[in-house]
């Protein structure tokens, strides 16, 4: 009886998956910076905000760090925000480049994690 009614677990407060911003530095931040899928191999979904800030006004572009695909560009700005729906089976990296010289000025990534790692082909769950 004791175990039936009192076997409770405290759910720890999950850390907010955001990178700390330093007030005076150039930043590129993805919030959340982690996406958790239930099983390894599944696509993970999250509504992500990628924001950037630079000390100098200029022309900047956000791109995928692996494919180098340009996602969005800003002209004569010192900050920007890009919202999108994360949908991936692997970690995705972003780079902010100065479009005048092509140099990377900041980078970040959205890490993919999963809960269950055993992808049994023959999984037998018993419900009752």
């Amino acid at each position, binding site marked *: 009886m004791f175990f039936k009614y009192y076997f409770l677990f405290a759910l720890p407060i999950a850390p907010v998956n955001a990178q700390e911003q330093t007030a005076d530095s150039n930043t590129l931040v993805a919030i959340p910076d982690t996406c958790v899928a239930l099983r390894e191999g599944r696509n993970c979904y999250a509504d992500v905000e990628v924001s950037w800030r630079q000390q100098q006004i200029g022309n900047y572009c956000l791109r995928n760090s692996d494919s180098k695909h340009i996602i969005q560009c800003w002209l004569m700005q010192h900050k920007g925000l890009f919202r999108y729906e994360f949908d991936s089976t692997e970690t995705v990296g972003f780079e902010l480049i100065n479009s005048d010289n092509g140099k990377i000025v900041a980078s970040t990534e959205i890490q993919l994690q999963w809960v269950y790692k055993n992808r049994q082909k023959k999984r037998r769950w*018993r419900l009752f």
Partner: protein
Amino acid sequence: MRACSALLFIYLCIFSTSSQASNRYYADNTLEPSQGFAWDWGIGAGYYAEDSYLVGMDSYNDGFEPDIHLAVSYEKFYLDYDQSQLSGGLSLGYSIIDKFEWGLDIVGTNVQSGFDETGLTFYGDDVIAELEGIKRRNYDFDVGLRLSRRFENSHISFEYLHDVSGTHNGWVMNSFFSQIIPWRNWEFRSGVGLSAYSSDFTNYYFGISQPESRADRPLYIPDTSYSLIFEFHAEYPLNQHWVFLTGWLSTWFSNDIHQSPIISQEYQHKAKVGLRYVF
């Protein structure tokens, strides 16, 4: 004392199932299966509510249950113990043939939860008046073959199992169709199944023997029986270690079960919500 508590805890975790047992078989065939040795395990707790089919039990019974799960696979062997989804049980398996989306396995599992005059929960200590005097029905362990066919996210399986524990010495046949539907980070699983139980099985669990019979509990010798099962389950990852679980199970029983003097109705429902920590 501490050792006794640990043993009691393990016992409760394994035998705290509380309703008609049934075994389910799901597979997400869109995933590349793990190779070699792979395992997951976790613990948690859940709140359940059920409408039990045993006489004398409250039509609305609820409470908290512990949850332990373990999934291990190595080459063609696999072991699953999962109690989170409204009850638990140990399943062992070995894949004999796995080709062209067809599979043939040797499986061993518990099919039916035991019960006694205190009801379905062995850790309950109050005798239920309507069940007083019945002998204990033990948990069985059945071994047999399963033939299965995989589709992209669904699965159909047929099993023939026979009790090897000496509990009822009968057979059980299960057929089950299941489907996994991922939606965003949720996983929804649903299934329907039809099971047949031998007269030995049915008589052991639901029959009334001469020593058990009394004025309001006549002798009862049932024949082969059947059950129809529907279930739904959902899981959602809260973070890398915590998972939210919820599920629903409905079972309908054939006449040979529900006409038993210790069975109050021809159906049983159970729902559960819980949290699990996966290591």
